């Protein structure tokens, strides 16, 4: 198809504003899927996504629209994830588009993520089509939301589409707006082939599969291609378009979106953000996009140290689908060999952990997550530390810097007081307040990242009856009075339980952490002392009383089989325990900090 008849776009929205529902309607209206294929929210197809109701991975789907002007258009809808942890994936999806539908809930109005998505879209020079969704709802505040959007985007009221994705209202207008308002791609069809990889997946039978946006020229089956970053060449086995499944075509040309299979076996060879060219006609790399930067780090260890190789293989596979995931080997005195894994945020960490356990059948111990620190030593060296155990001795530290984020909290004005209090507890630095309209405000705050990675989001919601929304981006490293809090169990420090905290919060953390551990560590054959320490100073202590009695009163003929079966079952439970010297610690204990109130 010639580029004039192609439109590449995304739908961007704050969580739950109706992106997936709108995508469903577009797929239906363009008859891309038969009604049978039509499930609710077809674009979310990973199990976990469904359960969590969050679009995690970017997907693409091609549809054809017969426009009012009588012409047929190819639409490539590129899905984007909706959680702040994944904003880098939004930016890579946007790199493949010329425009985006900005969906805003008619009841909720503009939220923090709406704004950050707008900024991302602007950075990528995308044309935005504002869409107010859920106009069918009785509580819809269409006019107010219109004003918010006019303010935010500087658009006219008539440019704003009013839609109910659920009721199918305004869908036709939306499709027409895509044709008339989103620019067509402007690559050079006659130039040397260049395409951007904006996603990748791994297929057990086909190997690594790239999702690409062709910028210039064309690619056809059998072409020898080159990945610019590695310089490696492959022969394309198959190219095609993505609908619900892969549909092979002979060639893809400038402006189009599709997939490419090239017998790429090594998981590391397909790098999202990389440029593909023809092997004989190399061209300049396309501008990639911001590399995802892990913000949160934690140790991931196999419960059974024999499973280390399997864990490595699982991480390698996961990484292909998830270029934001990074890891390197780590060894802990307490937990043995494992990996230090970097995540985009806590949600990302949970998802990776769940995928490893569920899809790759790994039994894992995950340690307390932390951010990255810059440690300036007295000898003038600077160390970047993503693991509390790597912190040099206090005497050698001149100062420590921690990452600080720039954030916006969008909230109905009545909750400002609560939220300011929360911000203060989290060492927030107030910047300013702006009004979206008479009743909604945006609070600008700077926070140490470490203060928001645990339960900030939940607290934010509970302080605002669920109304406030939050988004952030990295700002800078700043000096802070940080100390290492150690946990000692029966007098021995457990490296995997150490954490870096602000000095003023050390006492509070120490006592909360020790009492949480007391709940989580089962009674043993002897008393277990749990202490929290700053250097050699003990700041909190508690203990787990020894187990006194565990015995079956009767054990005769028929009881014996039962007894053995029970032992076997309990043995399995014990295997999920980690032996630290003489003490058994359950896996969850290493994440105790996440469960602290």
């Amino acid at each position: 198809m010639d580029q004039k008849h192609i439109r590449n776009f995304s739908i961007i929205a704050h969580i739950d504003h109706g992106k997936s529902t709108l995508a469903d309607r577009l797929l239906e209206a363009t008859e891309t899927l038969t009604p049978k294929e039509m499930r609710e929210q077809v674009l979310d197809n990973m199990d976990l996504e469904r359960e969590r109701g969050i679009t995690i991975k970017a997907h693409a789907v091609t549809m054809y629209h017969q426009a009012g002007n009588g012409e047929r258009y190819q639409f490539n809808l590129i899905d984007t994830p909706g959680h702040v942890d994944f904003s880098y994936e939004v930016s890579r999806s946007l790199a493949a588009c010329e425009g985006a539908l900005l969906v805003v809930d008619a009841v909720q109005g503009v939220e923090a993520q709406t704004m950050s998505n707008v900024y991302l879209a602007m950075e990528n020079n995308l044309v935005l089509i504002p869409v107010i969704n859920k106009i069918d709802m009785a509580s819809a505040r269409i006019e107010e939301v219109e004003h918010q959007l006019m303010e935010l985007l500087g658009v006219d009221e008539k440019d704003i589409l009013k839609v109910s994705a659920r009721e199918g209202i305004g869908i036709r207008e939306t499709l027409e707006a895509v044709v008339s308002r989103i620019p067509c791609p402007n690559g050079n069809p006659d130039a040397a082939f260049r395409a951007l990889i904006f996603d990748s997946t791994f297929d057990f039978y086909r190997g690594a599969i790239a999702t690409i946006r062709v910028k210039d020229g064309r690619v056809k089956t059998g072409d020898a291609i080159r990945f610019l970053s590695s310089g490696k060449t492959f022969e394309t086995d198959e190219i095609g378009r993505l609908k619900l499944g892969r549909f092979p075509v002979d060639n893809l040309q400038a402006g189009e979106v599709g997939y490419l299979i090239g017998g790429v076996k090594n998981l590391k060879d397909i790098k999202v953000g990389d440029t593909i060219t023809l092997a004989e006609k190399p061209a300049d790399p396309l501008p990639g996009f911001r590399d995802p930067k892990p913000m949160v780090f934690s140790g991931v260890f196999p419960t059974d140290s024999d499973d280390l190789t399997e864990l490595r293989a699982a991480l390698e596979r996961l990484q292909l689908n998830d270029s934001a995931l990074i890891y390197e080997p780590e060894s802990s005195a307490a937990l043995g060999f494992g990996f230090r894994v970097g995540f985009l945020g806590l949600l990302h960490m949970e998802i990776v952990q769940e995928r490893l356990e569920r899809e790759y059948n790994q039994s894992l111990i995950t340690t307390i997550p932390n951010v990255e620190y810059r440690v300036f030593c007295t000898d003038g060296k600077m160390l970047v530390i993503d693991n509390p155990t790597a912190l040099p001795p206090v005497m050698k530290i001149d100062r420590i810097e921690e990452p600080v984020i720039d954030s916006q909290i969008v909230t109905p004005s009545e909750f400002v007081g609560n939220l300011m209090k929360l911000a203060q507890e989290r060492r927030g630095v107030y910047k300013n307040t702006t009004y979206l309209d008479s009743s909604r405000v945006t609070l600008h705050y700077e926070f140490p990242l470490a203060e928001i990675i645990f339960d900030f989001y939940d607290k934010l919601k509970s302080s605002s009856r669920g109304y406030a929304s939050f988004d952030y981006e990295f700002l800078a490293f700043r000096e802070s009075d940080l100390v290492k809090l150690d946990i000692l169990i029966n007098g021995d420090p457990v490296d995997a339980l150490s954490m870096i905290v602000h000095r003023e919060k050390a006492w509070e953390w120490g006592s909360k952490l020790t009492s949480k551990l007391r709940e989580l560590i089962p009674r043993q054959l002897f008393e277990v002392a749990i202490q929290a320490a700053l250097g050699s100073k003990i700041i909190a202590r508690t203990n787990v009383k020894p187990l006194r009695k565990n015995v079956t009163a009767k054990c005769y003929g028929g009881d014996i089989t039962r007894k053995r079966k029970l032992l076997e079952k309990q043995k399995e439970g014990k295997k999920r325990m980690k032996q630290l010297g003489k003490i058994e610690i359950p896996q969850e204990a290493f994440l105790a900090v996440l469960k602290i109130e």
Partner: protein
Amino acid sequence: MAGLYVHVPFCLKKCPYCDFASVPVQSDLQAEWLQAVRAETVLRAPDWKPIRFDTLYFGGGTPSLLDPADVAGLIDLFSGSFQWARNPEITLEANPGTLSGSKLRDFRKAGINRLSIGIQSFRDEELQLLGRMHDAAEAENSLARTFESGFENVNADFIYGLPGQTPAHWSQTLGKAVAFPLTHISAYCLTWSGKTELGRKIESGEVEKPSEAVQSDLFLRTSSFLAERHFQHYEISNFSLEGRRCRHNEGYWKGNPYLGLGPSSHSFTGRERYWNVSDTREYCRMLNQGLRPCSGSETLSRNDIRLETIALRLRTSEGLPLAMIQNKTDFCKVFLENGLARIRGDRLVLTENGFLMADELALRLTV
């Protein structure tokens, strides 16, 4: 040596804490059961021909409800059907209230040489809580009659750690017990399951839940009290005078073979274990049709046997050969350091505090 067990699934009335296979007596069913046990004996005998038995145990239920003549008939049948060692131990379980003087004499004549009586407590309110048919006076009378009728080797069963029970209450029962010339005492710490009436009462809070601390304390008091009276604590819940251990039960703990007859009974050949259907009518029906009343079986792997051996031997004063746990020296050290076990010769033997933790320790030695 092997043991022969006969399960007698009848009681006067079901006790509220009981999860054994037992039903209230019905004379027709009892007659059918007797026929069925005889039939099962004939069915099983060929397989067990080569094996020499040295104990016979009538358990239940309440075997003392049986007519002594029927017991005599069964003993006759068994002696003709299997090979026997000299002086076999022949035990019958009995409940107070089912033991008249003449019945006792007839059981003795039938060949019963060891009686095990379900006294449970010498305190009326405890017996009521347990829903027993007898009161304390009846318990004492029946014991007195037992000794009068000439039984010498007598066990009494007790239950302690009851809701509301104090150490003084329990001492009172134990004191009365040792006033009789008992050769053996079984003292079981109360455990409950939600399936029984008493269990439900405890879990719903209707009666006070016995605490782990009190139960442990009573356990320790029991062994020191009985030790002073020359009772050896030879298994977690069992105490005996010198030479008066229950040989039948010891067979279970040593891993000896046993043949179980009657509903819900288990048999073990040394490699294979199988068990009978637990419903009495179903048991009778199957034997009536000439079928083996088996409801399940398992063949033990080497590892299964290891697990069982560890779990069972740890429960006895003989302990466990150290050779069996060579790879667990770390754990053993922890046990020793914490006073839960000691080494005797080449065996690991649990202390009284260790007995209280036997299941936990077994688990650690088998992981």
